[in-house]
């Protein structure tokens, strides 16, 4: 310690009129973080290798294969391979750069540098946005560089003309995927207690996006590039939801106060049981006092009170289901012209109700448009799809549940539009094959979907005072309640109708 006296420059107090939000602080934070990341060889080397060498390696491997196949038809392979290569080249550096985003908060917390940051005048939103942008820029840059290198090498070396629209799509997709992955990772980072936990949870970000990339590749190979823009749009919507959820649930209190958490399975199990038994409006109260004896479950109350109330509370989920049903049907209808399908692929004019009835009575090869004529099989199949949707909803913020509802509606829409385009009576078809059981089945599936969506969506927007975990447990409890007391009975009825009534309606209407 020098003996010099402290003669320091005076610093003015902060103005009481200081703006509530200050971009300068955000950028200060971003600059520091990026500079720090660029100095960390454990980040720079792997990302650098992936960014710079992966395109080269990809190209090199293609070289080896192409050289061998050159005599056949390399251009088709090129047309299919290049957009896929671009997607992969953009995705890989991004997914590995996730480590930056995953560490953004929890890493600083583990290294004890977070508190000093929280002690600066920066507010919660500034901190969150700063971390988010800092985590985003480097991965995004890495992706762009990878795409650029690959594009140049493809265009220059292979002299293959990359359509600008494909390039724009790949860049848009990569950007949207990157936004979703990074915002989700920063969200995870601000809600976990250790880097280890954050890294493990990363699988739940990378795996769905990797699946999405594969689906996108399929779409490219299939030649339906326009559909990619819908994926971009969907990703952007999800991203806005994630950023909003991040800002909403971030607070410096929780992040400092959180201690190493043993997963309290028992607590969650008890909480589930209490939520399940209590009426919906008492959830907030139950959350705080779940220690006591659970409230009693009265069957009468469930039907008179709980289910109506749950429906009212989950009107957004029901609206999303309804929109999906209508939208799915309309998209299916439109597919006929989009995909240039011959309209008479389904010819009901030659449909012979007597042969249909005979086939049914033989119980052998069932008519193609209806599955095996066994109501248990139908029931199990429907239930499994619904349960699968609910489960995957948890890992996709609800999206998969909606997609699984949209798919059959699209098929029905496609069938109907085909009949209409070939001047057949599509209303008769719907009335005969779909309506009899559909009048029960469709609302049931929509009901299940509405509550399945909530399981995933609630993570982005937990009820006031609920932790994410508690919110999911509540949504699960509500889902199980709806499932047991409404969906399963209705599904059974619908399956019985489908097997014992629908065929008769078909024969009657088509005779």
């Amino acid at each position, binding site marked *: *310690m*020098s003996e*010099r*006296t*402290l*003669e*320091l*420059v*005076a*610093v003015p*107090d*902060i103005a*009481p009129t*200081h703006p509530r939000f200050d971009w*300068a*602080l955000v950028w*200060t*934070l971003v600059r*520091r973080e990026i*500079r*720090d990341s660029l*100095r*960390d060889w454990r980040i720079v080397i792997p990302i650098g290798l992936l960014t710079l060498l992966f395109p080269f390696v990809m190209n090199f491997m293609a070289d080896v294969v192409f050289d061998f196949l050159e005599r056949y038809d390399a251009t088709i392979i090129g047309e299919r391979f290049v957009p896929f290569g671009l997607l992969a080249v953009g995705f890989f550096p991004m997914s590995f750069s996730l480590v930056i985003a995953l560490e953004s908060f929890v890493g*600083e917390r583990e*290294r*004890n*540098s*977070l*508190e*000093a*940051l*929280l*002690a*600066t*005048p*920066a*507010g919660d939103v500034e901190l969150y946005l700063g971390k988010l942008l800092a985590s985003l820029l480097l991965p995004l840059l890495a992706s762009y560089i990878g795409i650029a290198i690959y594009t140049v090498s493809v265009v220059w070396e292979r002299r293959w003309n990359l359509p600008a629209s494909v390039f724009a799509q790949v860049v848009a997709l990569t950007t949207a995927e990157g936004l979703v992955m990074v915002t989700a990772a920063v969200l995870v980072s601000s809600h976990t207690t250790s880097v280890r936990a954050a890294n493990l949870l990363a699988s739940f970000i990378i795996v769905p996006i990797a699946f999405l990339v594969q689906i996108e590749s399929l779409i490219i190979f299939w030649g339906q590039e326009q559909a990619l823009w819908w994926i971009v749009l969907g990703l952007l919507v999800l991203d806005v939801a994630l950023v909003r959820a991040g800002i909403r649930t971030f607070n*410096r*209190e929780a992040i*400092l*106060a959180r201690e190493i958490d043993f997963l309290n399975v028992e607590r969650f199990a008890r909480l589930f049981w209490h939520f399940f038994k209590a009426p919906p409006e008492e959830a907030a109260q139950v959350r705080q006092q779940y220690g006591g004896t659970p409230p009693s479950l009265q069957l009468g109350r469930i039907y008179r009170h709980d289910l109506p109330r749950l429906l009212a509370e989950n009107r957004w989920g029901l609206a999303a289901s309804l929109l999906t049903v209508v939208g799915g049907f309309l998209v299916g209808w439109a597919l006929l012209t989009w995909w240039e399908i011959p309209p008479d692929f389904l010819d009901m004019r030659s449909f012979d109700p007597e042969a249909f009835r005979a086939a049914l009575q033989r119980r052998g090869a069932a008519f193609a448009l209806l599955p095996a004529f066994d109501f248990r099989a139908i029931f199990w199949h429907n239930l499994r799809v619904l349960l699968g949707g609910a489960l995957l909803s948890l890992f996709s913020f609800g999206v998969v549940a909606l997609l699984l509802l949209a798919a059959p509606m699209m098929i029905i829409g496609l069938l109907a539009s085909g009949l209409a385009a070939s001047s057949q009576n599509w209303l008769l078809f719907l009335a005969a094959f779909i309506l009899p059981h559909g009048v029960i089945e469709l609302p049931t599936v929509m009901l299940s979907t509405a509550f399945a969506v909530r399981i995933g969506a609630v993570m982005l927007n937990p009820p006031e005072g609920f932790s994410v975990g508690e919110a999911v447990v509540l949504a699960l409890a509500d889902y199980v309640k709806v499932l047991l007391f409404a969906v399963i009975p209705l599904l059974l009825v619908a399956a019985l109708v489908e097997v014992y009534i629908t065929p008769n309606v078909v024969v009657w209407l088509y005779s």
Partner: protein
Amino acid sequence: MAVVEAVELTKRFGTITAVSGVSFQVHEGEVLALLGPNGAGKTTTVRCLAAILQPTAGHVRVAGYDTRVAPRQVRRLVGLLTEFPGLYGRMKPMEYLDFFGAMHGLDGQTRRQRAEALLKQFGLWHARDRRLGQFSKGMRQKMALVRALIHAPRVLFLDEPTAALDPEGAYQVRQAIADLRRQGHTILLCTHNLVEAETLADRLLIIHEGRIVARGTVEELKEQVLGPPVFRVRLADRLDGTLDAVREVIEPLDWDADGFRYRTTTPEQTNPAVLARLHATGVRVISLEPEPRRLEDVYLHLMGAVS
């Protein structure tokens, strides 16, 4: 003038109450030491004072700003030395200080000037080209202190400033704190080192399970817990009959072959009288010294009493 003021400060995390109805003030230019066992709520209190946490109930005001109403202003006025230095290991000192200066809204020139002055003052200027990750523990702690000072805060909150330092490093940091105090900084010091608290603090605040269990100057607390000072007389000769002579002046607490102990609130009068008696009986005195009254005894006594 109270620069820092906590009024019935209470902070709960879920079902746990970390701080419970704590009220105190830190006056301009004063060093207040906050003592207490791990988990007593010291760090939570400091975080509330620094507007990092919001109180569940009660108020905190720093230089008149309420932390709930104007947290930015409070954080601007406060310098916080956290329990662990937690530096960014890849940055160099000037970069590091520049970053925190910018986060506090200082302009570039002020940041540079203050950073340089502080690094020189704390003897870190020679290491300005090294990365913080290569600093020794003592240098890191001093660097964290410099960080807490970069924006010329009116108030300093120091959480365990010398923990984990070697004796030399701890000595240097203690000297630095004494310097800052001399320059008129208002300081709140959390520490487990009672010798340090005794040396540096004007007043002490002892908290236990989120409540204040004792407060006052070191002397007041010693007086309060241990009673008036005890003096010990060591004799070169056997005690024998001399005690009776001494008893005319004071009543010894206890005695042995070497000497005796007594308690007095007026040593200026009593001690010469005792010595005079002893001299009169011809007993030779080697020393007459006040018994050391360690703050540790006060602390352990208080902790034993409340738990």
